[in-house]
């Protein structure tokens, strides 16, 4: 494991962030031990660590073949324009990527209207303030405080373990019982704890909305089918990308970033693949705010991708460590306003 002791780095602007990553700042790194522990935890939770097995087991294989799948639209249907949700102010990209992926899965679960597999109830969207929505609905800081070292940078698998076991999703709001206001992103709040883990009071809040399970993805087909079914992904890797999108919103590889980014869509349409030598596209949501330029309109649609995102060719991201999140426990049940007769007879 890399040494990340006490080397906290705060960024004052998006230019600082981009420059730091392009010059070798390590926001995400590999840790085979953390990966192994993560897989063991998935098994212990009754999950399926391997994406291909999960697709086969739950009948998802080939469900997204040839299709444009945009789970980010489900996020927007509940929380309009909540992405990119601000910009990271320190090396906490892993918590941003994890938050964005979990937010996608959470919103898809809610909008699907599918009853919770444990309670049988259909969950509703939790209310947040306008400020909280603009900062991405869910807190990144609550995740990052569990990184277990005093510096910056983390692994995708360790963050996913935290979401499953210790500290699930925290809404952006004030937590007076913790003397902690998470309504707006704060890079300082992301580093209250580090080498020392958060106290029991944090653990108690974090247990309310744990992510049920997760799975590792290796092939495009697994990622495509899981995204098509509303399971969004967090990825860690060393690939850098151009800040300029092409006419179709695609950014090509440029440089190297030790960075984490979420996947919130996939385009497997034949006409799109034909434009890129047969390569399908994956929608990457970055955590640097409005850092890039170029068209955002999705090919042959009237839909724009979120600010700060870009399409990547699968061949450009195929080596990244990718984790897909399943459902989230514990949001309040959706309530019926009427059984359908009220005012209609």
């Amino acid at each position: 494991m890399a040494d990340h002791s006490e080397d906290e780095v705060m960024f004052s602007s998006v230019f600082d962030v981009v420059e730091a990553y392009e010059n070798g700042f390590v926001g995400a790194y590999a840790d085979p031990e953390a990966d192994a522990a993560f897989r063991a935890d998935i098994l212990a939770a009754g999950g399926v660590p391997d994406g291909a097995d999960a697709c086969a087991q739950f009948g998802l294989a080939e469900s997204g073949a040839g299709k444009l799948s945009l789970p980010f639209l489900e996020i927007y249907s509940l929380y309009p324009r909540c992405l990119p949700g601000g910009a990271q102010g320190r090396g906490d990209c892993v918590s941003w990527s994890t938050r964005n992926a979990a937010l996608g899965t959470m919103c898809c679960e809610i909008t699907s209207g599918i009853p919770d597999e444990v309670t049988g109830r259909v969950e509703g969207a939790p209310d947040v303030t306008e400020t909280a929505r603009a900062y991405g609905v869910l807190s990144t800081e609550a995740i990052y405080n569990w990184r277990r070292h005093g510096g910056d940078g983390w692994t995708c698998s360790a963050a996913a373990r935290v979401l499953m076991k210790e500290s699930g999703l925290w809404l952006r709001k004030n937590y007076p019982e913790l003397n902690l206001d998470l309504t707006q992103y704060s890079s300082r709040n992301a580093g209250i704890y580090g080498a020392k883990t958060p106290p029991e009071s944090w653990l108690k809040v974090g247990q309310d909305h744990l992510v049920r399970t997760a799975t590792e993805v290796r092939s495009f087909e697994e990622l495509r089918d899981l995204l098509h079914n509303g399971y969004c992904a967090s990825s860690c890797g060393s690939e850098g990308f151009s800040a300029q999108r092409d006419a179709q919103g695609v950014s090509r590889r440029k440089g190297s970033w030790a960075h984490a980014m979420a996947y919130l869509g996939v385009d497997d349409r034949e006409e799109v693949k034909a434009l890129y030598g047969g390569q399908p596209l994956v929608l990457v949501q970055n955590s640097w705010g409005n850092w890039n330029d170029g068209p955002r309109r999705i090919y042959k649609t009237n839909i724009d991708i979120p600010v700060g995102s870009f399409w990547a060719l699968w061949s450009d991201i195929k080596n990244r460590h990718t984790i897909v999140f399943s459902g989230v426990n514990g949001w309040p049940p959706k309530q019926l306003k009427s059984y359908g007769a009220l005012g209609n007879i």
Partner: protein
Amino acid sequence: MKKFVWIAGALLLFSLMFPQGLSLPKFPAVPVVPTPAPVVPAGTGDAEIVDLLKSAAPADKARIVDVYTGLRTVLLRDGGKRVTTTEKFADLQANTLQLAIDTPGKYSGLDVAIERVFATAVGTKDVVAVTPDMQKSLVQACDVIIASAR
């Protein structure tokens, strides 16, 4: 002789009306989907709905019976495949009533009484899955309304 003139006249008229002969649409000998007549058990009505409809026009009562007989049939035939949650049932009932009922509110309080029947049957305002047991409860609620409108 006069009888033959009539028959000849009728044949002439037929040939003028259908110079190509009769071309009847061809249907399968048997229906593709068997549609047995719905069997609605005679259940116990809801006292409040009975009271609200005691002076209702027979056509209005018949319409209510038809609507809820249709809903129970849909629920039974669907078997939880499309009407997967109580929210989807609520949408189904609302859409059906909006199409079927010309003058909502004609019998003041009827909508609230029907809501109460479903609330009692379902047991929660939370949106929940239409499991086989929940499907049974929704069908029973339809039966109560049907019996009340008869």
